[in-house]
Structures are given as structure tokens and as C-alpha cells.
């Protein structure tokens, strides 16, 4: 039982690691989209002014 639970905790740790990476990827993805949106908005404002 102890060995089984140790194996289970390794699986749990792996799952947590993968999900944490996914959360980090979500954060990076949001940052990328927001940055592109900001740039596009800035370019739009620039065009209007010219």
C-alpha cells in the first residue's frame, strides 16, 4: 500500500506539473494577445493621426 501510494503521488506530481505548465502557457498566451491588441490599437491611433 505504501509503495502504491508513493507511485500514485508521483503520478499526481506529474499531473500537477503538466497543469502548472498549461496555466503558465495560458498566462503567456493572454500576455501575447493583449500585447498584439495594444500594438494594433496604437497603430490604428497612429494612422488616424496621420
Amino acid at each position, binding site marked *: 500500500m505504501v509503495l502504491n501510494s508513493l507511485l*500514485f503521488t508521483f503520478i499526481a506530481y506529474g499531473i500537477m506539473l503538466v497543469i502548472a505548465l498549461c496555466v503558465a502557457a495560458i498566462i503567456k498566451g493572454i500576455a501575447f494577445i493583449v500585447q498584439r491588441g495594444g500594438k494594433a490599437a496604437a497603430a490604428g491611433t497612429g494612422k488616424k493621426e496621420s
Partner: protein
Amino acid sequence: MLILQLFQGIYTFFLNEPAIAGGRVLLIAVGFLFIYLSYKRVLEPLIMLPLGVGMLAVNGGLMVFEAGQMGNLFVNPLAGNAEEIMYFLQIDFLQPIYTFTFSNGLIACLVFMGIGAITDIDILLAKPFMSLFLAVCAELGTILTLPIAIAMGLLPNEAASIALVGGADGPMVLYGSIMLARDLFVPITVVAYVYLGVCYAGYPFLVKIIPRRLRAVEMDWRTIPQVSPGAKFAFAVITCAFLCVLFPVAAPLFASFFVGLAIKESGVLRFIEFLSGPLLYGATFFLGFTLGALLGVDIILNPKVLILLVLGVIALTLSGLGGIAGGLIYSKISKEPFNPLVGIAAVSCVPTTAKVAQKCAAAVNKKAMILPFAMGPCVAGVITTAIITGVYISGFVGEAPIFFRIFGS
């Protein structure tokens, strides 16, 4: 003896068996100790002060009911069927709080909504890999305590429940233990809250294993990039949906935390004031007071409580060591100066461990300002603990627990 019956709290001491009477005296004394330590700010007064009062009141206020049965007018957690619950709802003054907010985990969710509404996620979003890497390292206690607890004789679901103490999130431990080991949720939650209070005093000694010169490293918080409120709002909503899809069993916790975050970032002032003020502190008060009232003498007579006390220390120590190891590894791979003390903040317990990191850095270098960096891993720790809670609940409870399907019973 007849005159003593006028003062039933004292009278019942003579009716109790010596072990139970002794246990009552001990718990009243511990209640006084918690109140004193809360007053002196050694323990977290927000939770431990009402808990201490509840403890001494429930153990002092034992009385004789009809047919010679002894009980109190606080709460009866053992009320099972609908008829019994209806009876005690009309008798015990904390029974409505227990029945409607404890037995379904609502109180933990209410606290989490409030925590979400006061949590600053700027650093988590500015430095996600650093924050989540440290948080994953600081889950060492949550992971390793499970097999240790089973080796010490606990059932797998009970072991998973006490292992969650390593995640250092009181509401998460409460919610997880209600789901995983309902019989032990009171001692496990009390162990968690007491030890989390003690963390503030204990972790400064643990971090001394980091060389002094590394603890003194200064970090330039002006280099932290700005994060827009829109990005933070999007993060709260998307991550909530993502985690709820993965772990429906822990979805109430995720939803509560992220709805608090979303409201904070959306700037709806009335809701922010409500969640971060009356809701958070109201829920915290009743959480502490009702937990105290649940700490009757039958709790300490349970032989598993001593094991839980030992395992709580093991879980938090291992998580602290994991966080420190993560901090040391990150300081080696980081291109910018990095203070490994930030690693201890990843144990979570928002914001206590972040404050510990700052306090320890300032003790060796007054110019070291690491608190803004420490808040990132601290919040990331809540997310990783919630993930582990979801895995453990899925693994050990339900119709066909995954653990037993993989390894057999």
C-alpha cells in the same frame, strides 16, 4: 451535590469518567493558550481567537439533558438523519452554521471568494514560470506526506486529507478533508490552522539553511513588467474554466477563488468591498468559532489525532524544504539576481509566507526588497494546491476511486 447541579458545567466534571474530565480541563487550558497567543499575535488572531473562545466554551459548557445524557448547546456534528438535524437546528445555536456551511464546504468557498478579492496576481502574470516552478517545488510536503501517513497507519483517504496541510491553505484543507475524511475533518483543519499560525514563527529558522550571502541578494522590483487589468481579468476567467473542466470535484473551490479575482480585476467596487470585507471576515470568524465549538473532548480521545499532529509538522516542513530547494535551483538558473528566500513564499498561506521571506531577507540586508517577487509564488501555491486537492479527491473518493482502480484495494 444538589447545589452543584445548579452549576452544570462543574457538576458534569463529577459525572464524567476521569479521562474525559481530564481531557475537558486540558482543552479548556489549550483554549486559553490559543487566546493568549492570538492576543500576543504569535498565532493568527483572525482565526485562532474565536477558535480558542469556542473551545473553552464548549468544553466548559457541558450539561445534563433528558435521560441523563450529556451535551452542549453549541453544535452536534453527529446529527445524521433529517429528523435529528431538524431537532438540533432548533436546539444548538451553531447548528445552522455547521449544517448549512460546514458539512457542504460552503464556508471554505466563502473564505476563498474573499481571498480571491484581495489577491494581487501581478507578479504571477509577469513571471509565470518562476512563480509556478517554485510553487510546484513547494508541494513536496503535500506529495510525500501521503505515503508517510499510510506507513503510519492511516487509511489512504485520511492520509490524502492530512497531506493537504502541506499546501498550507486553511480553506483548502477544510474543503479537502470534508470531501476525503469527514470523520477527521475537525482535527485535521484545526491542526492545519494551528500550524499555519506557527509557520510565521517556525519558517525563519528553517530558511537558515540558505547561505547568508544568498539570503542578502537584492532584487530590483522596478524591472517587473506592468500587467494590464484586462490580462488579469482574462487570466481569472480562462484559468477558472480550464481547472473546472479538469477537476469538477474541486470546481466549487476554483470557482470561488477565481470569481473573487475576476471581481477584483473588473473593478466592481461594491462587490469588491463586500467580498473582501464582510464576507471574508464574517466567514473567517464563524469558521474559527464553529471549529472551536467542534473541538470537544471526544476529538482528543481519538488516537489518530496524535498521528495527525506529527504528520502536520512533517507536511509543512517538507513543503518549506521543497520551496527552499526550488529557490536555490532558480537562483542558479536565473540570469537576473534572485534571492532564494522567495522559494519559501511558494508554500502559499497567502500572504504569511511572503511576509516571512521579506522579514528574513531584511534581517540580513535592510535594502533587500523581495516582497513583490514573493507574492507571485505565494499565489501560484494556491493554484498548485488546488490542483493537488482535485487530484486527491478524484483519486480517493467517489463511486470508483481512481487510486483503487489503478492499484486495487
